[in-house]
C-alpha cells in the first residue's frame, strides 16, 4: 500500500490562476521524494494541497490508504516542516515536540517515550527547556522535524526547510535529515528549488514546471537521461542544440553532422549533451562526432575547467565543456569529440 497517492490533481485559485495541472504522484512507504522546480512551478502549492491547506480543484488524494481529498489538515496523517520552522515561540523545545501528541490525546507514558526518543535522535536533549529563539537555525530546524515526527505521520512534508540556513549549515542539516529518514524510515515529500539538494537526498525526484510534472525518476536517471529540454537545462548544465533527423541515428545540427547511438523519438526537439561528456582530440583528427571551435572564455573550477567554446554557427551561442587536467587557453582552437552514446534527445521547448 502506498503511503500517498495523488491522482489527477489540479488546482485553480479563485483569481483563475491554474497552479497545478493533472498531477499524478505515488509515494511508497519509506521513500524520500523531492518536488523540484523553479519558483512558481507549483511545487509548494502541490505540497500544501497534499497537506490539506488547499483544496484540490480536481483529483483525489489517498494517504495511508484512506481517501483524504476532502479532509482538513488536522485530519490528515501528514506532518509538515515549514520553511519558517513555525515553532511556537512561547513553548519550550520539549513542549513544541510534545504539542502534536498532546492534541491527539496520546497517553502520557507514550508521549514521554516519544519525546525522549526524538530529543535523543535530533540531539537536542541539552536544549529541551529552551525557547526556540535561544537556538541556532540548524537546531530550530531539528526541533521542527522532531515536532513533525512526534505525530508518527504516514508522510512528512518538507517545505524548503533549508532555505533559511547558510550554505555550509544547509549541507550538514541536509545530511542529518537524510540520515534520520533512513534510521526511522519515515516517508518524506520534500520541496526544494535547489537541484543539488534534490539529487543528493532523494530516492526519486519529481521535476515540475508550470504546474505540471515534467519527469519523475531516480536522481541518476534525471541527470543522465533527461526527457525534456527543461529538465536537461534545470538539472546540472547541458548543451542543447536543435537538429534535423537524417534517419538511423544520424542527425544534422548546426555543430555539424553527428551520429547518436539511439535514434531520436518522433517528438524530440533538441540534442543534449553534458559538458563533462566530451573528449578533447587533436585538431586534425578526422573522426565522427568531432566538433571544432575557439575557446572564448575559461573558468578554472578546481576539479575541472569550464570552457565556453564558439563553434562555426554564431547564432547558436557558446557550448559548455568541462575539461579535467590541463585545459586550452582562451583564444585557442580546440576540437572535441562527443561519444555517440552520450548524445541524448529531449523534447519540449527551452524556457
Amino acid at each position, binding site marked *: 500500500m502506498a503511503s500517498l497517492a495523488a491522482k489527477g490533481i489540479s488546482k485553480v485559485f479563485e483569481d483563475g490562476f491554474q497552479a497545478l495541472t493533472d498531477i499524478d504522484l505515488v509515494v511508497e512507504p519509506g521513500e524520500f521524494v523531492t518536488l523540484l522546480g523553479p519558483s512558481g512551478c507549483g511545487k509548494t502549492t502541490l505540497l500544501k494541497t497534499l497537506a490539506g491547506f488547499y483544496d484540490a480543484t480536481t483529483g483525489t488524494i489517498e494517504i495511508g490508504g484512506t481517501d483524504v481529498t476532502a479532509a482538513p489538515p488536522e485530519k490528515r496523517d501528514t506532518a509538515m516542516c515549514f520553511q519558517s520552522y513555525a515553532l*511556537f515561540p512561547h513553548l519550550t523545545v520539549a513542549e513544541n515536540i510534545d504539542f502534536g501528541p498532546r492534541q491527539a490525546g496520546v497517553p502520557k507514558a507514550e508521549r514521554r517515550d516519544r519525546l525522549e526518543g526524538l530529543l535523543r535522535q535530533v540531539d537536542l536533549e541539552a536544549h529541551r527547556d529552551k525557547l526556540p529563539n535561544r537556538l541556532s537555525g540548524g537546531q530550530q530546524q531539528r526541533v521542527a522535524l522532531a515536532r513533525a515526527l512526534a505525530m508518527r505521520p504516514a508522510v512528512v512534508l518538507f517545505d524548503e526547510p533549508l532555505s533559511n540556513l547558510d550554505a555550509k549549515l544547509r549541507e550538514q542539516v541536509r545530511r542529518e535529515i537524510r540520515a534520520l529518514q533512513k534510521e526511522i524510515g519515515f516517508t518524506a515529500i520534500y520541496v526544494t528549488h535547489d537541484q543539488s539538494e534534490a539529487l543528493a537526498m532523494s530516492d526519486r525526484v519529481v521535476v515540475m514546471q508550470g504546474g505540471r510534472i515534467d519527469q519523475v525518476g531516480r536522481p541518476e536517471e534525471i541527470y543522465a537521461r533527461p526527457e525534456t529540454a527543461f529538465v536537461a537545462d534545470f538539472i546540472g548544465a547541458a548543451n542543447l542544440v536543435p537538429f534535423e533527423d537524417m534517419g538511423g541515428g544520424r542527425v544534422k545540427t548546426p555543430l555539424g553532422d553527428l551520429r547518436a547511438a539511439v535514434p531520436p523519438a518522433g517528438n524530440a526537439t533538441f540534442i543534449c549533451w553534458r559538458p563533462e561528456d566530451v573528449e578533447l582530440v587533436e585538431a586534425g583528427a578526422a573522426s565522427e562526432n568531432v566538433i571544432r571551435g575557439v575557446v572564448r572564455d575559461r573558468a578554472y573550477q578546481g576539479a575541472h575547467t569550464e570552457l565556453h567554446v564558439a563553434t562555426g554557427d554564431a547564432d547558436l551561442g557558446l557550448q559548455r565543456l568541462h575539461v579535467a587536467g590541463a585545459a586550452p587557453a582562451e583564444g585557442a582552437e580546440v576540437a572535441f569529440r562527443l561519444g555517440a552514446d552520450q548524445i541524448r534527445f529531449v523534447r519540449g521547448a527551452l524556457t
Partner: protein
Amino acid sequence: MVSLSDTAPVASRRPRRPAFRRFTISNVLIAILLLVCVIWLVVPFGMAVLWSLLDPSVRWEYPDVLPPALSFARWIEVWNTTSLPMALRNSYILAPTVAVTTLILASPTAYAFARYDFPGKGAAQVLTLLPLVIPGFVLAIFFSALIFSLGIYSRFLSILLAHSVLFLPYAIRLMTVAFSNVRLDLVDAARDLGASPWARFRVAYWPALAPGILASLIIVFIQSIEEFAVAFVVGAPNFTTIPSILYSYLGYNFVRPNAAVVSLVLVIPNVLLMLGLERLLKSANPAQTGVKG
C-alpha cells in the same frame, strides 16, 4: 594562551576608551532625561502630595519651601463632604465596562485591517482615527443631544456609548498591530499538528494578541477614568465621576489642597496600572520574535 598573556597590557588598556565615551554621551543623556522626569513628573506629583497633606489650620505661603504642618484632614474632609465615594464607584464601574466594550467593538475592524486588503482600506483607517481630533466638548454637546433624541436616558449607558466611540481609535490601532503580529505559519502548523480551534487560538493567536488586548484595556480604562467633558456634559449632575469632582474645585471655589486630594485619587491607580502594563508588555516579548537563520 601564550598570545593572550602577550597582549594582556594592550587588552587592559582598550576597554577604558569606550567606557569613557559612554560616560560623556550616554550619561549626559541619562542625566538630562532624569532632569526632565524630575521637572515634569516628580515635582508636580510631590507638590500634589504635599498640598493634599497640608493641615487646614495653617497656610503654605511664599518663604516656606515645605508646608508648616501636615495631616490627613483634607483627605477626610473631601471623603466626607463630597460625593467622591460615589464618584469612585461610578468611575471604577464605568471604565472597565468601557474598556471591555471598546475592545469588543474594535476587534473585528482591527482584524480586517490586519488581515484583508480591500478598496478604501487607507481611507477607512484614517476615518477610524477621527474621534481623536474632535475636541471632547464638541463631541459631548452634540452627542448628548443625539443620545436624548434616541431616547436613551440612562446616564451610565450614555457615557458608556460616548466613551466607547471616543476611545475606539486607540483600541483599533493597538489591536490592528496585535492581529498583524499573529503568524499565519503558526496557525497552519497548529492545524497540521491536529489542534482543535481552541488549541489553535491558545497557541497561535493568544500569545500575539495578549499584549495588545492588555494594552488596549488599560489605555482605554485610563482614558475613560480621566475623561471629563463627556462625563460632565452627559452625566451631570446625577452621574458624578472623579474628574467631575476635580473640576468642581477649579473655577470660583478653587481649593488647591482639596483639588490635590482628588488629583491623587485619580492619578495613583493610573500610574500603578501603567507600570503594570510596562511589565506585561515586556514579559510578552518572546511571542514577537521572528525566525532567524
